[in-house]
């Protein structure tokens, strides 16, 4: 009896070892087969139009660092900065087609392809940057991810997160002050709606071509993050900055769905959703840059002021109507995104 039991146990051990070996082989095949292999790491090309060293690029570097650390050599991230692979619209098209694996683009660039995303950059959607960060980490990824998936895109996560402020030639403390002020041709419908609601006079050219504020026929008001405005020289001639933090300016990591679905499960989990913790240093650096820029503007004699409660209230109604208008214009996705942004 004892001998028979021992034999059975041995048979069971052999069978178990066989099953384990088979599973191990299957797992190995799954992780090293298509599209990557142990010999040739899978290449993830990520493109952005941001310059190296910029806040967005710092987040791309953090992303690459995260993949290098957690991918165990499976993935080689190749980064292309400065628009070397093209402008955002073309990059997104390639990602959707599957000829490029990933991009880091501004939400406003994404909105040109997926108009509902523009709701997130509409004024007044987020009270401040902290509220935006909270929403970007909770409800929004699911809502935006579902929307992008229908377009052949997979949301990785949000990169840089900053808020736009007002640069103006004269003090800007109430919406009515902007009536008749010159603004550049809006780059988005959200911007257009806001400019029109302010009663601004729109130039025929965009920000890149518009005469600066120190030009007699130049722009008199613009909305931008302090970092973006100074990097582009748009602060030229500006005398006032209202730290309104009225609109979100953020970058998003997006993958090709076709490419993403061919990845091993483990790798997919590392890529989406991207843990917010990997961007902590980059986000701190971005805020340090913003402070540095604002300090330099003050030193230059620019009046930088944070709106008080009463001043903020004067703008809030205008902002709220704009965000609702964008959500209505792009429903159902837009409304869904607005609800997610507001934590509902």
């Amino acid at each position, binding site marked *: 009896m004892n001998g028979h039991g021992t034999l059975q146990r041995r048979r069971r051990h052999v069978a178990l070892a066989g099953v384990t070996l088979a599973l191990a082989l299957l797992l190995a095949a799954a992780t090293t087969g298509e599209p990557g292999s142990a010999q040739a790491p899978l290449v993830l090309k990520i493109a952005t139009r941001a310059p*190296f060293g910029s806040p967005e*690029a710092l987040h791309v570097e953090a992303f690459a660092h995260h993949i290098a650390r957690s991918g165990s050599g499976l993935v080689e991230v190749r980064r292309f*900065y400065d628009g070397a692979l093209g402008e955002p619209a073309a990059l997104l098209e390639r990602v959707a087609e599957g000829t490029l694996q990933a991009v880091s683009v501004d939400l406003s660039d994404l909105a040109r392809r997926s108009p509902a995303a523009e709701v997130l950059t509409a004024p007044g959607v987020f009270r401040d940057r902290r509220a935006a960060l909270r929403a970007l980490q909770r409800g929004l990824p699911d809502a935006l991810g579902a929307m992008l998936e229908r377009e052949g895109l997979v949301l990785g996560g949000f990169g840089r997160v900053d808020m736009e402020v007002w640069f103006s030639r004269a003090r800007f403390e109430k919406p009515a002050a902007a009536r008749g002020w010159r603004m550049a041709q809006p780059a988005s419908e959200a911007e257009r709606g806001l400019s029109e609601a302010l009663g601004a006079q729109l130039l025929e050219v965009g920000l890149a071509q518009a005469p600066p504020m120190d030009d007699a026929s130049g722009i008199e008001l613009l909305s931008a993050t302090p970092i973006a405005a100074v990097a582009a020289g748009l602060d030229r001639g500006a005398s006032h900055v209202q730290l309104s933090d009225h609109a979100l300016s953020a970058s998003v990591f997006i993958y090709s769905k076709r490419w993403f679905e061919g990845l091993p499960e483990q790798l997919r989990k590392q890529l989406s959703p991207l843990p917010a913790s990997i961007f902590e240093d980059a986000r701190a650096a971005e805020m*340090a840059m913003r402070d540095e820029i604002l300090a330099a503007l003050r030193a230059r004699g620019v009046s930088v002021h944070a709106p008080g409660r009463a001043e903020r209230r004067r703008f809030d109604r205008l902002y709220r109507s704009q965000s609702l208008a964008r959500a209505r214009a792009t429903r159902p996705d837009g409304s869904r995104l607005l609800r997610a942004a507001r934590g509902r």
Partner: protein
Amino acid sequence: MTASPIFLVARWRWGKLTGSAIVTTSTSQLHSRIEASGRLRRTLAWPHRGPSPGLGALLTALPLIAACATAGTRAPATSATKPTGAGPTAKPQAPTPATGWATRATPEALAGLIAEARGGCEAEAPQASACTELARVHHFALLAAADSAEVAVADGSGTQAPAANDHAAAGLAAAERALQLLAPELAGALGQPSAAPALPAIDRAHGQALYLWAVHRLQQARKDGFAQLSLWTPAVSAALEACRDSDPTLDHGGPERLLGMLRARPPSPLRRDLKASRAHFERALTVAPNYLITHVRFAEYYAVAAHEPALFAAELRRVLEADSGADGSVRPENELARKKARALLGRASELFE
């Protein structure tokens, strides 16, 4: 202060992108000799600010531009009878007094040149010419030192101030001093980063000092991070345009070359203008077609930004096939350009899809 992993990776990546390993010989010797001589104060701790300085490769190139500046209008006596390697519009090179400039490639000579110029610049009655000379010698030294700085970052040991930072800071100080002595109004206009600097008319005689200021200022801003780079870019661009208008042959088309680099990779995508970048490079090459560094920059900045691999390879092969010693006055710079071209060609598959 230690840099965060992201910044170290960013800097390392930048070094890889730009092929900063241009100078592989004598860098550490140079550094240690200068250190030992006690002639150079360490004015900056490195990395003294958090984020990686931005704008990618543009700024790594500044040391090379420094070399250009040093080689530009003051050639050694030995080459006075030769063409400069510049194009039809290039000025004939004036012989340099016995400063040993021709021997600048050796660390001993470079340390001596720094000491000599510094003596004149920091004297009780400082001479503007000595300060300009000091700025240009620091430029060449910076070129030599940049490599060791990048290596220190790549291997994670970049916690002590490399020589490159000393040279950038000292070179900027010398150029600022030269401008204060030559054109106080101009120096005042460039004292703070301005979005729209109003530069007074540039005297042709001040062109080299202003050019060296622009190159050193950009290098320093890059080292200080993306915010500083953004803040200083308008002033640097204005200075380069003024130099170009005053003397387009300065430094073998240096102002046009640097403007071409800035237009290809500005701090903001809104200001990227590849058409303008190409035109700047082409004008620089018209001024000095045989100055190999311009070909390298054209490939590295314009061709990469425009994603033109064929142009990239053609320009770099031209550099490798050229006779770098055809013009003895810029032989050291052309030799560096060849090394850089070889390194860049080796990374073509990394830079292009």
